């Protein structure tokens, strides 16, 4: 019996190859999109699963309220906090600090290596993060101050093998005699912290006073609580601890600490500032694309169901004969579900081929490392089997029950079940759903696109074109910045150079500055160290007062330049000459405002421009910026490299263009847009495919009616309208449903940006236009056949 079903199903599908093709193409595309999205979602939900005692592991988040920035959640806490926590709070089993020092330079003999993902920490890290050592003992590796633990890969990269690396001494950021006291296993990539090298915390702490201060928040702190401890209560206790150690009031309210559970760190940290998350993702984005995936697969299933129902008229005779010969309804249900199993199976196989082909591209867009691994990912296999059976049943069930309901007598006599015509409400509802989704998605993509274009073209307040920044090599940044500035100017095409803490002008950190008057105002600002050439180079106008000037000897120790946002936050009418007092870790003399620059977007346009204060501080520069007029960028980079090797032989040159850096800020947005555009096009395509098939079948069903009308004098346009009307009404209803929903969703989406476009009628009209166009093209394409067909053919066959 089974083989009989299978055989007949195959033959049926082969015979109706156009129908089968539409189904298979639609379904496989939908399934492929679904698989990729599910893999993406699985990848993001797999983050941090290697950390032991998941449910007791937390990151400490500090909620601050400061003048100029309002409320902010930061993932940084003071250096002395972690060692204190297990001593002061019994519920805390372990606490560990993870101070990141960016990319460090390792020197082995005469060779330099750049090492990323370096953390200064304590030996408790091995227990809390579940890091296993291949060489060395967790209790001993950080016994001496200058000790380093390398990952297996890092050891192999620098020394060739684990054994060769273990016990060696290296130079770290131009400091000699760091002992490689341990080698750890490589840490998983799907972790919010990428760890490749660990260094004893003390080695950094002894050189930097702020790392010993409770007033400087500079590193993430993680805790593992004892079983059954209440995280809320622990948070309150840590808040109190922080309060007890407070020396200054930096904020408008005392900061509060809460414990962020491990499973929220990767995907639910959008509001958290100052975090080091690797490839973070927004939970709402995950949900949005998950919904899109389900919608796409639903559209494909709907095609399946609609085509099957529309085709059922043609198959009515077969059902009638089978019933007459004794087939029970269940027999027929099996029969039709068998066909659906075959179509879906073929589609799943095809989908896997699409996925395999397109994964590299997707990995680039999604910034992920997805792979189709059947052997190591049991969930994938279960998922695929589930997709196969699920879709087969979902799409096969209704048509199967629908067709098996036919009365043998009626279909054999030629009486058509009125429900079998396309007039059935379910078919109509499904078409409306398909189009509503297609229109909604189109609308959202149009709005997103407009927003991204707006950002891309928005005046950021500075000229980032033709700017390259070079990282200044240590150990003497001050001397080397001067040297670089001078020497780089000699390269053809270099128009100006400037030294700065970071290419965007601000150092990334925040500080509180205290107004030196009777108001006792303390304002939180971003902080930047720039020299006298930076604002000119970036074409950032000084709107009040003056720029830094080398001829003013006091500028270096006593001057500050603010941005307009800072002036506004302080509500100053005449800021020039106003003074700040030394405060907290800032032991410098009083600073006087000498100038105000116009606001520019030093970070992405997602966030409002925060108050910023700029100081002239030669020992704080990390980069030298160049403005050039070269169009041959690659040769220019070679010129820079040649000059660099003259000045700092053996040192690796690290450079970044301002445009690249800006692109990084918006990469997430662009990628989301690409993704949604792709899925929208897919959804439209599958919908169009379904409509194509449906129109074809509908015209076939109505061929007799159309033939009679033609005999009676109906012309081509009237016939096309006859068919089109049926579908256009449905598209109209879809528009009414889709637009309000899509509109609301778009507003939510725009809410993520600080500066946004307004949605106009243009997007509405465009979305409707695209949907109508697709519907009309499909219908007209088919209707052509009505005209060319000889009416007698249709009349005879009936």
């Amino acid at each position, binding site marked *: 019996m089974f083989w009989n079903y299978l055989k007949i199903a195959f*033959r049926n599908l082969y015979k109706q190859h156009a129908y089968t093709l539409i189904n298979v193409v639609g379904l496989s595309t939908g399934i492929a999109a679904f698989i990729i999205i599910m893999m993406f979602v699985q990848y993001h939900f797999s983050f941090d699963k290697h950390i032991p005692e998941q449910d007791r592991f937390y990151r400490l988040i500090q909620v601050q309220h400061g003048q100029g920035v309002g409320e902010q959640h930061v993932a940084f806490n003071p250096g002395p906090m972690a060692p204190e926590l297990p001593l002061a709070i019994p519920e805390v089993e372990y606490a560990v600090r993870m101070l990141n020092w960016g990319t460090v330079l390792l020197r082995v003999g005469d060779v330099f290596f750049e090492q990323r993902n370096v953390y200064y920490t304590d030996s408790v890290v091995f227990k809390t993060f579940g890091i296993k050592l291949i060489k060395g003992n967790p209790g001993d590796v950080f016994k001496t101050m200058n000790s380093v633990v390398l990952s297996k890969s890092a050891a192999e990269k620098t020394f060739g093998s684990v054994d060769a690396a273990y016990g060696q001494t290296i130079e770290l950021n131009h400091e000699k005699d760091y002992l490689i006291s341990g080698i750890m296993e490589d840490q998983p990539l799907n972790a919010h912290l990428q760890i490749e090298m660990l260094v004893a915390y003390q080695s950094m702490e002894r050189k930097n006073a702020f790392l010993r201060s409770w007033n400087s928040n500079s590193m993430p702190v993680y805790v593992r609580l004892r079983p059954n401890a209440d995280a809320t209560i622990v948070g309150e206790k840590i808040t109190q601890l922080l309060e007890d150690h407070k020396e200054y009031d930096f904020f408008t309210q005392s900061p509060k600490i809460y414990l962020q559970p491990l499973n929220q760190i990767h995907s639910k940290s959008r509001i958290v500032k100052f975090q080091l998350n690797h490839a973070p993702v927004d939970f709402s984005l995950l949900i949005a694309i998950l919904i899109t995936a389900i919608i796409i697969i639903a559209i494909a299933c709907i095609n399946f169901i609609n085509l099957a129902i529309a085709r059922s008229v043609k198959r009515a005779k*077969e059902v009638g004969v*089978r*019933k007459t010969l004794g087939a029970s309804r269940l027999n027929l249900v099996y029969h039709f579900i068998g066909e659906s199993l075959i179509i879906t199976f073929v589609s799943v196989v095809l989908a896997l081929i699409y996925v395999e082909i397109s994964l590299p591209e997707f990995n680039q867009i999604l910034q992920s490392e997805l792979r189709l691994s059947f052997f190591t990912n049991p969930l994938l296999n279960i998922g695929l089997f589930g997709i196969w059976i699920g879709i087969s049943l979902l799409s096969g069930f209704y048509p199967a029950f629908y067709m098996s309901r036919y009365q043998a007598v009626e279909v054999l006599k030629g009486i058509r079940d009125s429900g079998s015509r396309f007039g059935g409400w379910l078919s109509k509802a499904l078409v409306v759903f398909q189009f509503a989704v297609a229109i909604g998605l189109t609308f959202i993509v149009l709005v997103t696109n407009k927003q991204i274009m707006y950002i891309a073209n928005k005046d950021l307040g500075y000229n980032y074109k033709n700017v390259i920044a070079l990282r200044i090599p240590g150990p003497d940044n001050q001397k080397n910045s001067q040297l670089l500035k001078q020497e780089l100017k000699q390269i053809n095409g270099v128009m100006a150079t400037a030294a700065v803490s970071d290419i965007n002008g601000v150092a990334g950190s925040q500080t509180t500055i205290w107004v030196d008057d009777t108001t006792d105002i303390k304002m939180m600002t971003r902080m930047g160290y720039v020299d006298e050439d930076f604002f000119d180079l970036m074409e950032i106008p000084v709107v009040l007062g003056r720029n830094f000037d080398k001829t003013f000897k006091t500028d270096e120790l006593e001057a500050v330049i603010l941005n307009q946002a800072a002036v506004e936050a302080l509500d100053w009418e005449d800021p020039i000459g106003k003074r700040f007092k030394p405060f907290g870790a800032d032991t410098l003399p009083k600073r006087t405002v000498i100038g105000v620059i116009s606001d520019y977007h030093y970070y992405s346009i997602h966030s409002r421009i925060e108050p910023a204060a700029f100081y002239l501080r030669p020992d704080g520069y990390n980069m030298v910026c160049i403005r050039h007029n070269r169009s041959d960028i690659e040769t220019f980079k070679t010129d820079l490299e040649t000059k660099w090797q003259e000045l700092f032989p053996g040192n690796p040159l690290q450079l970044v263009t301002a445009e690249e850096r800006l692109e990084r800020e918006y990469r997430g947005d662009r990628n989301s847009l690409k993704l949604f555009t792709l899925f929208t096009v897919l959804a439209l395509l599958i919908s169009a495919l379904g409509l194509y098939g449906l129109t074809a079948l509908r015209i076939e069903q109505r061929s007799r009616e159309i033939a009679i009308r033609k005999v009676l004098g109906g012309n081509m346009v009237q016939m096309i309208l006859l068919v089109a009307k049926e579908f256009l009404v449905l598209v109209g209803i879809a528009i009414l449903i889709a637009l309000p929903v899509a509109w609301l969703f778009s507003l939510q989406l725009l809410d993520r940006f600080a500066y946004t476009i307004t949605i106009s009628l243009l997007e509405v009209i465009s979305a409707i236009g695209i949907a109508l166009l697709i519907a009309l093209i499909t219908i007209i394409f088919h209707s052509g056949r009505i005209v060319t067909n000889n009416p007698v053919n249709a009349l005879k066959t009936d």
Partner: protein
Amino acid sequence: MIKAEKLTKVFRTDEVETTALNEVSFEINKGEFVAIMGPSGCGKSTLLNILGLLDNPSKGKYYFLEKEVSKSTERQRANLRKENIGFVFQNFNLIDELTVFENVELPLIYLGMPAKDRRKRVDEVLEQMQIAHRRKHFPLQLSGGQQQRVAVARAVVAKPSLILADEPTGNLDSAHGEEVMNLLNDLNANGTTIIMVTHSQRDAEYAQRLIRLFDGQIINENIKKNLL
């Protein structure tokens, strides 16, 4: 074998009520060959559908193999059908997607017969109907007469005690028509009861008894010899 008591069938639409059969009563014994005749719309096919358990009457009683079945469910009727009744239609009603062999095999599949036995039985019947050489062809590759022979083969393959034929020669030329009628005649001679609806006087001559219908009522019921 068959006993109809005041069988009535009424078709209703929103506005019109049509009585297709009006209190029709008769009996048919095992082994009989009965022809039903009458003008278009007189209720012949409706009657045949009820006799074939494809439809239920609106009123009246229908005894099939001594069992009252007028109120049976579709499931019960399906079981009775597949074990006892074979159908032959005017338009053959073969499944175009299946080969000759597979079309004939279908009733046996629904009866749950093992594959080996099925093959044997189908081959036997195809030989008997002289269509075995076409066993791998699809219906649309055959002539009308050949298609109807396949249809008859399919009707008899499960060895039903009753064959219902609805205008079996209606779509055939006279030579092919005669072939089919001879097949039915042979089956009847071997003990199969046959009820046939026809327009053709010639075909009716093969029957032993004739029932004439007009406007849903029997107007004449005669034994062959008296009639002709």
